[in-house]
């Protein structure tokens, strides 16, 4: 239906705000995202946000039409709502997977029960977001899907001065050896594999700690605080940044 191609917006004020983060991401090329969502208002908001980030968005409000577009347009990523007219979202994904189409898919759904998540992922979805969701969350996850770290046989990870030995389970920053607890190592490893990407608290909880539902505490912040303290020593340029209202990001430079 509507094709929205947007230009990326670069805000004048520097600093770690979401806009800057995604401006950097959208720099590379116009990434095509297919959105299959039947609620017009929701679709418009999502489309506008993604377009602002520099994505090219194709929208379909119907399952059958959406499947058709997925096949013909070959998007880089898809956002699929579960409850759709015509053909429900999971069936669309199932059909694509049967055709060996490996496009990463983010499932969007008002159905939030654990069984629904499990089902969504089992039917071929790569990630699952329940409505309502924060737009920042949606975009961060699309990013994550698009820049999934490839299966690597590397035994070390390197981001700027940070180096992680995956066999020895040791870490160093330049010459300084960093003493990490196992959980801190896991967290750093995850962040280094996704350097320069915005990682939301929800993503970290789910993937580093395998924690889908949490008691209301600032778990992630406390752990991140510890890690930051060890990684960003006094006088060193900070590598772990807190993106206000969104999450965290590991990168060299501001």
């Amino acid at each position: 239906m509507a094709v929205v191609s947007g230009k990326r917006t670069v805000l004048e004020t520097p600093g770690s705000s979401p806009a800057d983060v995604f401006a950097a991401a959208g720099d590379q090329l116009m990434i095509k995202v297919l959105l299959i969502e039947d609620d017009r208002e929701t679709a418009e908001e999502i489309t506008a946000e993604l377009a602002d980030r520099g994505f090219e968005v194709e929208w379909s409000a119907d399952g059958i039409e959406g499947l058709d577009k997925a096949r013909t347009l070959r998007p880089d990523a898809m956002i699929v709502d579960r409850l759709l007219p015509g053909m429900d979202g999971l069936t669309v994904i199932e059909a694509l997977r049967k055709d060996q189409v490996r496009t990463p898919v983010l499932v969007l759904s008002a159905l939030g029960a654990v069984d629904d998540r499990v089902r969504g992922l089992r039917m071929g979805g790569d990630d699952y977001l329940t409505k309502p969701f924060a737009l920042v969350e949606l975009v961060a996850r699309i990013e994550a899907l698009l820049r999934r770290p490839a299966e690597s046989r590397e035994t070390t990870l390197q981001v700027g001065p940070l180096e992680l030995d995956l066999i020895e389970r040791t870490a160093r920053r330049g010459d300084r050896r960093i003493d990490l607890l196992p959980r801190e190592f896991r967290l750093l490893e995850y962040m280094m594999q996704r350097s320069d990407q915005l990682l939301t608290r929800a993503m970290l909880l789910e993937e580093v700690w395998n924690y889908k539902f949490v008691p209301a505490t600032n778990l992630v912040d406390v752990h991140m605080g510890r890690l930051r303290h060890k990684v960003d020593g006094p006088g060193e340029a900070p590598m772990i940044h807190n993106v206000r209202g969104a999450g965290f990001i590991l990168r060299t430079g501001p």
Partner: protein
Amino acid sequence: MHQAEIIRSNTFRWALAVAGVFAVFVVVLFGFIYWQTDQYLIARSDRMIASQLDVIAALPGERRLDAISEHLKQDSRGVQYAGLFGADGHKMAGNLEQLPPQLNINESVQSISVVRTLSRDARVIRAIGRRMPNGDTLVIGREVDEAREISHVVGQALALGLLPALCLCLLAGAWLSLRAQKRVEEVNQRVQRIIAGNLRERLPHGNADEPFSKLAAIVNGMLDEMETMIGALAGVGNDIAHDLRTPLTRARLALERGRTNATTLEQLQAVVDKAIANIDQSLAIITALLRLAEIENSRRSAAFGTVSWQEILREVCDIYEPIAENKKVDLRVEAKHRLDVRGDRDLLFEAVANLVDNAVKFTPEGGKVAIELLRGDGQTIVRVTDTGCGIGEQEREAVLRRFYRSDKIRSTPGVGLGLNLVAAIVKLHGFRLAIHSGPGGRLEIICPDKQA
């Protein structure tokens, strides 16, 4: 409730069947009595005949003739028969014209057919005959009809009794049927009222042994259970209403005022932030409640596997360690033994995390929180203790109510659903949650060993 229904009802049919069997039995019984009476009377008569014969036979020859005449003279009713016949068969005395041909001499009393003197009807009598030493034959007999008459009277009386007995049976059947119908009708009406919404009603039950009463007791038990559940649901509705409305109201108020009063972009952004925060709070409550419902109604035993408590407890401790440290609370785990249970790893993890989260949250600075894994008597116990304010004796029941937040901790963040979640998870697994009252907090998840 009408005739036709009564007649058609099973109870009545049964009553009819019973009446039929009863009737058959009575007929057989009465027949037996009749026959026995008959036999007795005949036997008695026979004995009399035989002894009469003996008496006359014992007399010397000439005297016999007189004896026979005398005997017959005394027979006012004409039921006696006697005869003395010479060796050649001619009649010497008595009221029998000739020696009855069918009579077997010198045997016991038997039934024969004779014709009386001065009469033309043949009669069946009981008679006995004996040959005398001098060649004469002596015959003594008696009519049986008399005995028969007595039996007949008895039989008639008994038959007359049978009809009333049958009627009584049928009436009893009808009455029982009616009574049963009435009870069913009564129960039906009660149930209708209950369905219409009056959950308080219960079925009446008299003494507990009658099957109907047992059934009523069972149904009442069911209704008790239902009333509790519905009460809980209704309660939740109220709780939800309050706890959702509050943050949503705040959001609305902030937006409304902001729209009128905000003059700068920053101010408007602040208003929007506040609104979003409150909406998120409402959503968190909805999500938590839905999760609770999901777990409580869950058939997620499909996701059950073997879960290591040791692993879970160590991991939970690991996660909460920095938080405890920030608060200067000493958090320890003691899980020396490898103890496994059957369950859903994610849910059990969440349950323990909730308990530890609460413990750390409600323990003041400098306090202690301990997570222990122990073996009890045929059970495994996961214990979380803290040196905080604990849960008072009176509060032990209340804490499991939705949204309950003790006054002691009202100032801390939280919605009051954590323990509900733990309780739901524990119940799903068939475990038990034990809440001990102070000092300090002490909660246990008790996992009984399952019989393999």
